[in-house]
């Protein structure tokens, strides 16, 4: 009953090949020794990986993206934890509305956020600043952080907290010593998903990135629009390798489907 027919397995194989083909091809092309896009069987070399190091504007953009991801994911989680405590433990007036408001950036296309942030940052004079970039990213990743943190707070057994309170612990001590350690898996998962979403974001960032604050995906996008060469392939391949490592770790600890379910909603 629970066995797939041969036709179904063939479909599955084609489907998986379709999913992996563009990523595999990028990784293959990255190892070419030629000066143009070609497969490595005509000549294998690591020269295009070394070439990344000679292009400081990619390296700088990489560091900027990492820093941006760390800063915005940390702020988003820092805001999501108290908000989740409010939503999970209190029934207050406007609860549903505030929660919907916090999740609503998911409904706004990134291109719309991009144009809005551009006007706003220019108006208040934050265009081209790192802080401005961070706050735009916080808005984009906040719904993801909130969802994961909220789900870990909601299912929490509160008897340990009551015990701590009855033993005379203050609210802050209860939170720091009892609650936080229990929700840390959800918080960490929310942080990682937020970081990745920020690190990969391109559509909105294209608008708010100034020459001094260009993120890696934006720089890569601008490069690809101009020219497609083995350099961009080796850079992409490096990102794929890094992502694979993170992915296996994530899958180990959380299960990838648990983290990604509803990412697009």
């Amino acid at each position, binding site marked *: 009953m629970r066995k797939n027919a041969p036709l179904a397995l063939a479909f599955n194989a084609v489907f998986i090949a379709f999913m992996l083909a563009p990523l595999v091809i990028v990784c293959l092309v990255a190892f070419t020794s030629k000066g143009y896009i070609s*497969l490595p069987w005509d000549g294998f070399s690591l020269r295009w990986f070394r070439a990344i190091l000679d292009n400081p504007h990619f390296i700088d953009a990489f560091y900027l993206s990492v820093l941006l991801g760390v800063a915005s994911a940390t702020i988003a989680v820092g805001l999501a934890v108290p908000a989740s405590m409010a939503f999970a433990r*209190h029934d207050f007036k406007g609860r549903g509305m505030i929660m919907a408001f916090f999740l609503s950036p998911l409904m706004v296309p*990134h291109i719309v956020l991009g144009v*809005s*942030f551009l006007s*706003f940052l220019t108006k208040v004079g934050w265009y081209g600043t790192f802080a401005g970039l961070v706050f735009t990213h916080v808005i984009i990743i906040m719904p993801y952080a909130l969802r994961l943190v909220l789900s870990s707070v909601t299912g929490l057994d509160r008897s340990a907290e009551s015990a701590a309170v009855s033993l005379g612990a203050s609210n802050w001590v209860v939170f720091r010593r009892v609650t936080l350690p229990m929700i840390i898996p959800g918080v960490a998962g929310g942080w990682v998903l937020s970081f990745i979403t920020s690190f990969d974001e391109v559509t909105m960032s294209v608008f708010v990135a100034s020459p001094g604050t260009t993120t890696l*995906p934006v720089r890569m996008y601008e490069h690809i629009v101009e020219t497609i060469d083995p350099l961009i392939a080796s850079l992409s391949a490096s990102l794929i390798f890094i992502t694979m490592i993170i992915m296996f770790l994530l899958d180990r600890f959380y299960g990838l489907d648990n983290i990604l379910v509803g990412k697009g909603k």
Partner: protein
Amino acid sequence: MAHETQSSLKIRPYLLSAPALVLYVGMFLIPLIMTLMLSFYSYDMTKGGIIEEFSLGNYTEVITDSYFHGIFLRTLSMSVLVTVFCVLLGTPEAYILHRMSSPWKSICMLAILGPLLVSVVVRTLGWAILIGSKGVINQTLMSIGLIDEPIKLMFTTTGVVIALVHVLIPFMVLSVWASLQKLDLQVESAGQSLGASPFTVLRRIVIPEIMPGILSGSVIVFALTASAFATPSILGGRRLKVVATTAYDEYLGSLNWPLGAAIAVLLLIANIIIIMSYNKFIERKYAQAFK
């Protein structure tokens, strides 16, 4: 927490959500309202840029100009095509995955969901390398003599649709997968033991059960295709414009921010209408099932 007064408990949830609320009003609500206002202004290069006077000029231009009609129609037809392909390919894949057993199940799941963690720019680059006129597909086909001239996929709607299906189909698989998790396998067995053919079981038991998953996946895919930027921009090029790339060009190319804002507002409204009407539809149709 008996020592706390009733009133401090009452304001606590507001205090807890206040920091996020402040950020959202300042960085999200105000920018969106600014864009809405901007869309009613006009742009005149000879008069030094944006003129802050209320007018419907941008909207009438978008609604009456056949140039914009073409762009909106292209975006719409691309979204429909991508959604249809994602349903046709993603649904059976999710069902097959559901019936697989570990470790193959988790390996396939990783292969399908993994690309979601890779920037869309990188995934699109992969397709550009594959489908270009000197791309891998064309070179391979030509070298084995199957075709004489390269198939034109780069800078065509077909190419953009293929890549967008690849970029967005994980959402469809995930969505259907999530609804399959709720499906009781015994119902399937019961149907079969009562003499239903596998096809009948699929049609009468499985499909109705996963319909909400297919629908919510479709809404996600449709909305994300309609506002996709990087993929149509890289694979579609200058000539194959969609709504998002047009807004981008108005903003950063012709510097006509008010017109770009109007296009963005229309896209946002379309997006909200689609999501809202989907929610209404689900509520009406499946209200009984959730009671």
